[in-house]
């Protein structure tokens, strides 16, 4: 049964297209592998917290004063500082903070006095949705462009694709965002200018936090349409450098695989040209691309900061900028930790997908 569910469906010889489902993996070994990787995440996370904590406390500014109000007396300010535990020695503050984290409490934001974890988790899906769909778009377009360029090697299409990818890495995304806004929402009026959803239309019920998926789950096509429209421009802007990177790596990956012997054998025994390239050659050259997807995920979280500001996207990028501007210590630390954890998990997922693609690695797990 496991083979059927997870294993590769044994190809029947009818004309039906067979589908490669995720190949079977020993269940026990996978769980053990993930546990080991998660444990290895802890030391780098601890380093991360230490680094950010030191950086933030090295600064003279003190948000409590502005919180205490215009003519708050020094005593009032001191009393507030005590309440937030900011008067204790730094090492003690750090110790308390780490202990709290272990209990899942990232502390309260100094301004809204609400748990930072709650605020971040409220805004996290917006950024994750933006980045995930940007990566999906980038993977789809990047891999297609890269493969076409490699197949028509040194031909006109190859040169065009190379020119486009090099430019994609050179363009400032915030500049493109501004231009897209001007053209598509102000002049052509096709796409909404800002925000994640339309005010007038009731948002789909919160299930995954991803508006596109939630609206599909709620079978609400209009909501899906609205969410898709709002997502379009930020997604495309964020995807541009990712498309360029993925196309370049796919191209060199496919070029390398085309040299391999099994490609000659495959064409000698009559594989269809398209299937040979798009299934058999591509799957072999994807391992490099998947590594890039992991790295890109981290880079895009940073890149999203400017995009979220321009398109008024309520993600953690704009939350982080706000927190930094107002020296909301706990909020900045909270964002850093959450991004660190996401980055770690994404790398683990990348390695697991990598094993699926390249069976020889499976023995390693």
């Amino acid at each position, binding site marked *: 049964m496991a083979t059927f569910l997870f294993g590769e469906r044994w190809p029947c010889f009818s004309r039906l297209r067979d589908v490669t489902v995720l190949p079977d993996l020993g269940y026990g070994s996978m769980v053990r592998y993930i546990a080991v990787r998660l444990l290895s995440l802890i030391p780098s996370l601890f380093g991360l917290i230490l680094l950010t904590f030191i950086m933030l406390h090295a600064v*003279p500014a003190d948000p409590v*004063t502005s919180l205490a109000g215009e003519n*708050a007396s020094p005593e009032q300010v001191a009393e507030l500082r005590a309440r937030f535990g900011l008067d204790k020695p730094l090492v003690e503050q750090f110790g308390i903070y780490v202990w709290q984290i272990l209990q899942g409490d990232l502390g309260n934001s100094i301004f809204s006095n609400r748990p930072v974890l709650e605020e971040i988790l409220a805004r996290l899906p917006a950024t994750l949705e933006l980045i995930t769909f940007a990566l999906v778009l980038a993977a789809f377009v990047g891999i297609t462009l890269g493969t076409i360029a490699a197949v028509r090697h040194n031909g006109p299409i190859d040169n065009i694709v190379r020119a486009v990818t090099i430019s994609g890495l050179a363009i400032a995304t915030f500049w493109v965002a501004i231009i897209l*806004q001007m053209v598509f929402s*102000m002049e052509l009026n096709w796409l*909404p200018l800002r925000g994640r959803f339309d005010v*007038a239309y009731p948002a789909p019920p919160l299930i995954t936090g991803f508006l596109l998926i939630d609206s599909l789950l709620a079978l609400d096509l209009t*909501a899906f349409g609205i969410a898709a429209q709002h997502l379009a421009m930020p997604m495309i802007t964020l995807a541009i450098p990712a498309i360029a990177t993925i196309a370049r790596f796919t191209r060199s990956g496919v070029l390398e695989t085309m040299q391999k012997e099994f490609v000659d054998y495959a064409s000698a025994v009559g594989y269809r040209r398209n299937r040979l390239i798009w299934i058999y050659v591509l799957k072999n050259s994807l391992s490099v691309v998947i590594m890039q997807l992991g790295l890109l995920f981290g880079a895009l979280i940073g890149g999203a900061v400017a995009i979220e500001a321009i398109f008024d996207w309520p993600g953690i990028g*704009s939350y982080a900028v706000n927190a930094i501007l107002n020296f909301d210590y706990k909020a900045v630390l909270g964002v850093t930790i959450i991004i660190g954890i996401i980055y770690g998990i994404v790398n683990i997922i990348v390695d697991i997908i990598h094993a699926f693609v390249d069976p020889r690695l499976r023995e390693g797990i």
Partner: protein
Amino acid sequence: MRRIMQIISTLAIVCYIGLAGSLTATHAAERPLVWAESLPPTLDPHARFDVPIQTIMVNVYDALYRYTGNPPKLVPWLAESHTTSDDGLTWEFRIKPGLKFHDGSDMTAADVVYSFQRLLKMGKGPSSVFRGVLLPENVKAVDDRTVRFKLEAPYAPFLSTMPLVSIVNPRQIEKHVKDGDFGEAWLSANDAGSGPYKVNPETYQQRVRLDLVRFKDHFMGWDHNSKPMENVSLRPVQDPSTRVLALLRGEIDATGAYLPTDQVERIDKSKNANVSRDETMRIFLFRMNNKKPPFDNVHVRRCLSHAFDYDGFNKIVLKGFVERNPGPIPNGLWGIPEDIKGYTYDLEKAKAECDKARAQGADLDREFEIHTLAELEQTVQAAQLFQSALTKLGLKVRIVPGTWPVLSAAAAKPDTAPELWVFWISTYFVDPENWIGQMYDTSFHGTWKASAFYDNPEVDKLLRAARRETDQSKRAELYKQAYRIIYKDAADIWIYNTIQLRGLSNRVKGYQFTPVGSGSDFRSISLKD
């Protein structure tokens, strides 16, 4: 080739869905009012003391008194009437009958007492106004409709500070108090008020989204507005340019209160939006640290006062959307001497003053810094204009962009306070005390408002007398004398009194502006059909 066909077909489907969505979206239910005012990080009216929280105080809560109209008049709101004892220490307020909170419970004097005590005990922003004036234990309920306050010292502007205290519902708050936080964590995302609009906690997301629903049995009734707004959606737009573009496109109905002047022409030209211009009470000034050489020398301060191109900035850069404000009290308020016209932009006079200062040994060769508020473009433009004028006088100036938390914290002590920085002082309560009183009285040193560290015993005497005096005409005389001295000392460089600029879409009707709350009062607003 088959592969490429697949790609094109999937993209086509996505576009189709997009278009389908857009067609239906436009016919969606009648669009609610979308207000792009910036949201405060917390909805608790007793926790913050800045412009964004005023939108919540005006719409979700009520106070004993409230400012209405422009120029603002203090009118009784929850309170019916008030009496003051002869020595000005005991104040009694009588509240109207039949007042209801959002949860339906009746409002009594005890709730008023609870609200004042909560605000004072929390010791956050708004409580600073009552420092040394009112203690929590001196607020008592005489009967279920009368509250008595006993002040520590006579405080003339006490009545004008009443709108700062929102009356909250103890029954809702006490249930959610967590380890002595006065229920602040819960109230930061909920509503315990009695105001014309209720907060919808389900859809509230901090700094991102707040939906308000009309409270039908608000005590002031709704006959003043035939088609009141059932729903108001507050959607702050972080980026100023995106905010204006959203207005032009009709995605939002109103921008925030700080509309950049460059955008005014563009909105006026557009066919679906306009700019409402209302003179408010908000002074824009260059603050000089009078304790830090060379600014401790009056001639240096006068030299700089003559070196700023007031008309160039007000008329050209800000396109005449502001009025020259010669001194520390905003135009239109009482207490301003009639004969003072303000320092003129005159480089010869400036040079003469600087030479006098050099003669007295002031060190004018050192490069000094102008600190600006990076995210507020106007402060940067003013600083750059000032810098190019001062370099003509041979003075070396460096512009340092900063942020509000950094500068307001540094302003607490004379040695860390910036030597020259630029900001606004807004209306929190309509009384000269809010400006000249709290800016130049040495007892307020340590607050950013008094970060000029101006020290003149005679001015202290005048201001303290004015604070205690109950008769407004006598207070006006005292403030005028103090005003003349401070002006002659050129303690700061007062530039203009703001005209409040807010972009509004053409379908908005009934927008009424008052300096306190800067016009975000949804009670009176309705939509043209």
